């Protein structure tokens, strides 16, 4: 239940056997390879060794992966099959894996083809858009039955265009029939923005006519590149759209025909990912002309199997396995029991412990559990959270960060349920509201809405307990480092002083004991806190000033008042929702409103309060708890292994 001990591996081998060794290490998948490129290149090494630089190759592989990935994405787009949210990876036998990869060239052809087909589909989409726009612009002219290319006869001109709706068309017609009698105007169509006009006039009067119309806001249109009547053009466009649809269907069919390649392409993608990871690993080694050196870490529980594994190697190489000491900067792997494990997430989000530190998770987990539940504090909400996350965990067994988060919420739900039952909150006060005050679910402990001061006191007590724990952990790490005196002076004396203060506040007989404890604590603190100084006056001043830390302790305790504030918030918002829901009484309409408000409101309340509880519980851990004893800054253990996205390669033989 702590940080897993690591063993340091140093391996020196022959350059020509390098790829085989790397492959083999990847298959066992327990070695975290150090990047010794920069650290080991000190003066004495320069000139002798070189960084093994494979970045270019890794980059090329990355680009190839991107191509395959987008091809897979296109295939998924046109694939009707729905995939479940947390689909497990497909298993592929190692033999089958290399079999599939024999057709690599075929797959690349497919990838190219898919991207070409997708490009063509995009072009078809553009063409379809163009045609649809054309139809939309032609439709208002539908009733005009002269061909559009007819813009003049021997003696007349034909003008088409639009007038803004503000212009009075009738008035203009009348005016023109008087002023330019050699003209004929026809109103083709009117919509909410403009009037569509076709005008025919004698060529000699064209200029005058357009001038008059322009003054009214006329905008002349011409249908270039078109022949025939409007209706014919619309029909042609519709036909073209049908054509586009047909083409699209065939293209889709072609892509769908490639859908069978999808599984192969997934294999190809994972193959490329493995190659890339290998190249990245190679970049972490150092090499001379014919040898290479590799450094890394293996967790203690894997070290025996690792030793057996490499003893079967037939390569000529030198391997040393040393136990690490805690001053070394080895990667961090945490090992905790099932209850604590989900809470590792909270620490991971902050920072992993350094190798020399203690794992804070077992101590932090109970506090997070209690605080989260207290801040949400509604039994029904807790049940809902626990059931919902429980089902997802049971059905999909999610791993990694998501898995930890869901388990954390599951445990949080249980804690919320317990606190809710203690406080008597079941969807707030829904029972009281619906029964108009006749029934109430009594709290097992007390209702914080009736007695907030009592919960405030308890919040401070919880805070005090956590702060005392933090100080204890600080003392423990000091003792572990061999600084026993520091632990006694900096932690032990504070315990005496602070406990005395608390007892003094309680008063009575205990208060008298408290008084003496405080006095003893103060005197001892003044005498010891300045011990690092040489000058006797400085020693004393520093000792006196250190008492100011008591203020810091107080403000830390007060910070736990958020437990009360957020706990109250849930209950009050819940009762707001219930009050609004029951406003209309218990007729049919009222019950419908109640159901809608109830569902929507409480879902919102759960979400916002679970978020708030998570953020503020984390904050209490990060600032108040970790701040006392924990530094962090460890780097996570990332074993060099086969890390695939789509498939699991069974039988870890040569791939």
């Amino acid at each position, binding site marked *: 239940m702590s940080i897993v001990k690591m063993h340091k591996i140093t391996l020196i081998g022959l350059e020509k056997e390098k790829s085989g060794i790397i492959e083999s290490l990847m298959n066992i998948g327990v070695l975290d390879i150090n990047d010794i490129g920069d650290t080991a290149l000190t003066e004495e090494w320069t000139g002798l060794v070189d960084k093994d630089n494979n970045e270019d190759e890794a980059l090329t592989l990355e680009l190839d992966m991107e191509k395959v990935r987008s091809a897979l994405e296109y295939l998924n787009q046109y694939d009707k099959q729905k995939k479940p949210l947390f689909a497990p990876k497909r298993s592929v036998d190692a033999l089958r894996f290399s079999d599939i990869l024999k057709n690599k060239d075929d797959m690349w052809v497919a990838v190219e083809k898919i991207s070409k087909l997708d490009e063509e589909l995009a072009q078809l989409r553009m063409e379809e858009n163009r045609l649809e726009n054309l139809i939309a612009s032609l439709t208002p002219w539908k009733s005009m039955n002269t061909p559009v290319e007819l813009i003049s006869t021997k003696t007349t001109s034909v003008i088409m265009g639009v007038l803004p709706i503000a212009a009075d068309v009738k008035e203009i017609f009348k005016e023109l029939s008087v002023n330019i009698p050699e003209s004929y105007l026809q109103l083709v169509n009117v919509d909410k923005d403009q009037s569509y006009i076709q005008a025919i006039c004698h060529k000699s009067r064209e200029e005058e006519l357009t001038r008059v119309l322009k003054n009214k806001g006329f905008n002349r249109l011409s249908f270039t590149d078109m022949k025939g009547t409007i209706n014919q053009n619309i029909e042609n466009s519709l036909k073209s759209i049908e054509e586009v649809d047909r083409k699209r269907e065939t293209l889709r069919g072609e892509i769908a025909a490639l859908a069978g390649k999808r599984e192969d392409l997934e294999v190809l993608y994972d193959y490329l990912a493995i190659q890339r990871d290998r190249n990245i690993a190679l970049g972490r080694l150092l090499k001379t002309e014919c040898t290479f050196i590799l450094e890394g870490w293996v967790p203690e529980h894997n070290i025996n199997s690792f030793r057996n594994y490499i003893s079967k190697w037939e390569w000529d190489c030198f391997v040393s396995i040393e136990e690490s000491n805690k001053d070394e900067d080895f990667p961090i792997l945490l090992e905790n029991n099932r209850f604590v494990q989900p809470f590792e997430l909270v620490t991971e989000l902050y920072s992993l412990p350094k190798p020399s530190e203690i794992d804070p998770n077992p101590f932090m987990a109970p506090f997070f559990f209690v605080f989260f539940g207290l801040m949400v504090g509604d039994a029904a909400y807790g049940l809902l959270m626990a059931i919902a996350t429980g089902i997802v965990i049971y059905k999909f067994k999610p791993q990694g960060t998501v898995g930890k988060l869901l388990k954390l919420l599951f445990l949080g739900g249980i804690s919320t349920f317990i606190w809710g039952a203690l406080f008597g909150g079941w969807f707030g006060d829904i029972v009281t509201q619906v029964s108009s005050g006749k029934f109430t679910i009594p709290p097992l402990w007390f209702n914080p809405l009736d007695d907030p001061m009592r919960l405030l006191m308890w919040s401070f007590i919880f805070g005090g307990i956590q702060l005392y724990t933090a100080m204890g952990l600080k003392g423990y790490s000091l003792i572990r480092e061999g600084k026993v005196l520091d632990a006694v002076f900096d932690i032990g004396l504070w315990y005496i002083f602070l406990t005395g203060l608390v007892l003094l506040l309680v008063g009575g007989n205990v208060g008298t004991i408290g008084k003496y404890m405080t006095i003893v604590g103060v005197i001892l603190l003044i005498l010891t806190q300045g011990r690092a100084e040489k000058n006797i006056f400085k020693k004393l001043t520093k000792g006196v000033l250190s008492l100011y830390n008591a203020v810091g302790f107080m403000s830390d305790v007060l910070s736990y008042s*958020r437990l009360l504030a957020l706990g109250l918030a849930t209950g*009050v918002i819940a009762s707001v929702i219930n009050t609004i829901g029951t406003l209309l009484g218990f007729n049919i309409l009222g019950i419908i409103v109640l159901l809608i408000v109830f569902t929507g409101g409480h879902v919102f309340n759960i979400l916002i309060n679970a978020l708030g509880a998570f953020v503020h519980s984390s904050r209490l851990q990060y600032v108040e708890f970790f701040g006392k004893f924990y530094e962090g800054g460890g780097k996570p253990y990332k074993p060099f292994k086969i890390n695939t996205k789509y498939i699991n390669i069974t039988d870890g033989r040569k791939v």
Partner: protein
Amino acid sequence: MKLLEVLLNGNFLALIGAACAVIFAGLGSARAVGMVGEVAAGVITEEPEKFAQTLLLQALPGTQGIYGLLTAFVILNKIGIVGGPVKELTTVQGVLFLVAALPIAIVGYKSAIAQGKTAAAGIGIIAKRPQELAKAVTFAAMVETYAVLALLGSILMVFGINI
């Protein structure tokens, strides 16, 4: 004289208090959430997959508005406008409610905006190093402390007023 009577009416003063709590805390949260949203939208144009993370940061400065509403509700509940016979308050009692609403109204407004700025800067963290979400959230939560304390102050005052 009629106007003065209204102005000195206890219930009127208490309602002003409740209104202030909702108005100012809500205004602050609205501005802050908007501010974070603008920055978040910029990140989303480039990296739509970061939606959940940025949304989390955007939601953080929204709590002040809720605290304001909460305080208002506690006041309304206490004077019987919600859930019970309305009580007639004296002028002094009305003023007391008004004063009790001030912490969350003022601190809520200011802390929401300050938290919004912190969260908006946190979006910058998400844009460059998405794995550091927890730190961005913690920075914003540091500001929230003072809104929580103001809420606590307001609520304790409201609970403490004798009517």
